[in-house]
């Protein structure tokens, strides 16, 4: 699924201008990492792409469908093809891991066919398959909030697998994980992405992870696209300008253990 973002602007009712004239085209199957300091509009852009925010200007289309023109069932239908991974995992903590994975079917199959009590045997088997894919089959019956952060993020990936997605939006998927768990989650996420040939838009704060996993780096600053390069091609000066600070060369090296975090 491809993404075409055309002249998008977003101003909140209080007058804060978060996005200014953003143009970005992402091809089907492309892996883009969005970079930028906190508050530069990365998360807002993702929310706009999901149709969770109304646009002040411009258009966004996913796979040829204009997000801002869709409503109700059609918008939900489009969203069901988009997998989202969040910084805080956003799972329903006091339900079982299994139930959370089954919720991946809510957009496609509706409520009754996504509840453990009433769903089809086929969906149950599929949920177990997805959990097994992320290596957590043995935790199916556990309460989700009893799992560690890294495990919860893997459950979120299993939920996304359950969903039949064509594109993945990941909003700082490893920001609340330690470096080791973060790397495991990134590996798993991109394995899944490559297996299913998915388009991916991933917001990251770790420059070395960005260089390692991205096919393309896009930098946002003050609501504008200011950087659009293949990985490892961005100069220190360009990245420093993006974050308004000095960049340590160790941060740019691939696979550095104990990586420095950009924030």
């Amino acid at each position: 699924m491809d993404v075409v973002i055309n002249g998008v602007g977003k101003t909140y009712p209080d007058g804060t201008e978060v996005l200014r004239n953003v143009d970005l085209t992402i091809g089907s199957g492309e892996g883009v990492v969005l970079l930028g300091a906190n508050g530069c509009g990365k998360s807002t852009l993702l929310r706009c792409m999901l149709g969770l925010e109304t646009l002040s200007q411009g258009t966004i289309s996913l796979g040829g469908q204009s997000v801002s023109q869709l409503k109700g069932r059609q918008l939900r239908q489009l969203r069901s093809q988009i997998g989202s991974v969040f910084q805080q995992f956003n799972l329903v903590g006091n339900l079982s891991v299994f139930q959370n994975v089954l919720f991946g079917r809510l957009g496609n199959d509706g409520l009754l066919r996504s509840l453990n009590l009433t769903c089809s045997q086929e969906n149950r088997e599929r949920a177990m398959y997805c959990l097994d894919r992320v290596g957590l089959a043995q935790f199916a019956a556990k309460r989700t909030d009893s799992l560690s952060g890294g495990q919860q993020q893997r459950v979120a990936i299993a939920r996304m697998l359950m969903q039949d997605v064509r594109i993945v939006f990941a909003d700082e998927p490893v920001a609340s994980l330690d470096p080791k768990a973060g790397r495991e989650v990134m590996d798993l996420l991109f394995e899944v992405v490559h297996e299913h040939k998915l388009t991916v838009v991933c917001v990251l704060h770790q420059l070395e992870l960005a260089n390692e996993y991205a096919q393309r780096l896009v930098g946002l600053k003050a609501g504008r696209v200011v950087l659009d390069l293949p990985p490892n091609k961005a100069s220190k000066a360009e990245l420093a300008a993006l974050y308004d600070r000095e960049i340590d060369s160790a941060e740019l090296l691939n696979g550095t253990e104990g990586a420095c975090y950009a924030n």
Partner: protein
Amino acid sequence: MQTETQPETSSPKRFQSPSVFAWVILIVFLAFFLQGLGSADISVMRLVKGSQNLGQFFASAIPPSTSRLDVIAKAMLETMNMAIVGVTFGVILSLPIALLCARNTSPHFLVRVVMINLVATLRTIPDLIWALIFVVAVGLGPLAGILAIIMDTIGFCARFFAERIEEINPKPGVALKASGASRTSVIAGAVLPECFPSFVATSLYSVEKAVRSAVVLGLVGAGGIGVELTSAMNLFRYKEALTIILVVLIVVILVEQVSKAVRARIM
């Protein structure tokens, strides 16, 4: 060490006279208090006489009579039935009402305002008055009591349910919405599961409340043990009245302990 310099603003006064508003409130309060004290006609004589009467009541009530224990037990069972049935329907009705009242789940601002005011009205009218109204509507007996308890439970539960719903973490719901879930699915999948333990605790507390109020509702003829208590008192059968009071005491304490134990487990 720096030399001490006096800050330009001086320290606050030791005592500051209350504002005019505070004075007005204080004077109005005092006026009501003194007038109330006066109109209650309190005198040492009356207090002494009162404690003598109380002594006489207990002297003639002890030992409590067990001759009509079966009738009393049956009436107590009816009281419990009223409480349980009333709270069950009350809680079932509170759930959709709370969803309409809560800021994050209400479909429209106007719906929310109307429902919040409806719930506030239900809460403002005391259960005894509901019972009087329903005795007129459906006649004497437990049905009037059940209806009164339903109203009281909605006034209490719908409010606390709605407050809990407004406190939820919105993120899991956003995740489900982002994957294409409908409004109903988000509520059923993310909102209600998170609120469930709190809903159970509130409902249990409401059972305690309803048992206490079901006892009193009988006084106006809305069924249950209160009917027995009024007639025992009116006929000066104090031994029987004491039995009833003790039975009520035991049952209310039991219900409270069970409810407390369950709430401690789930919260």
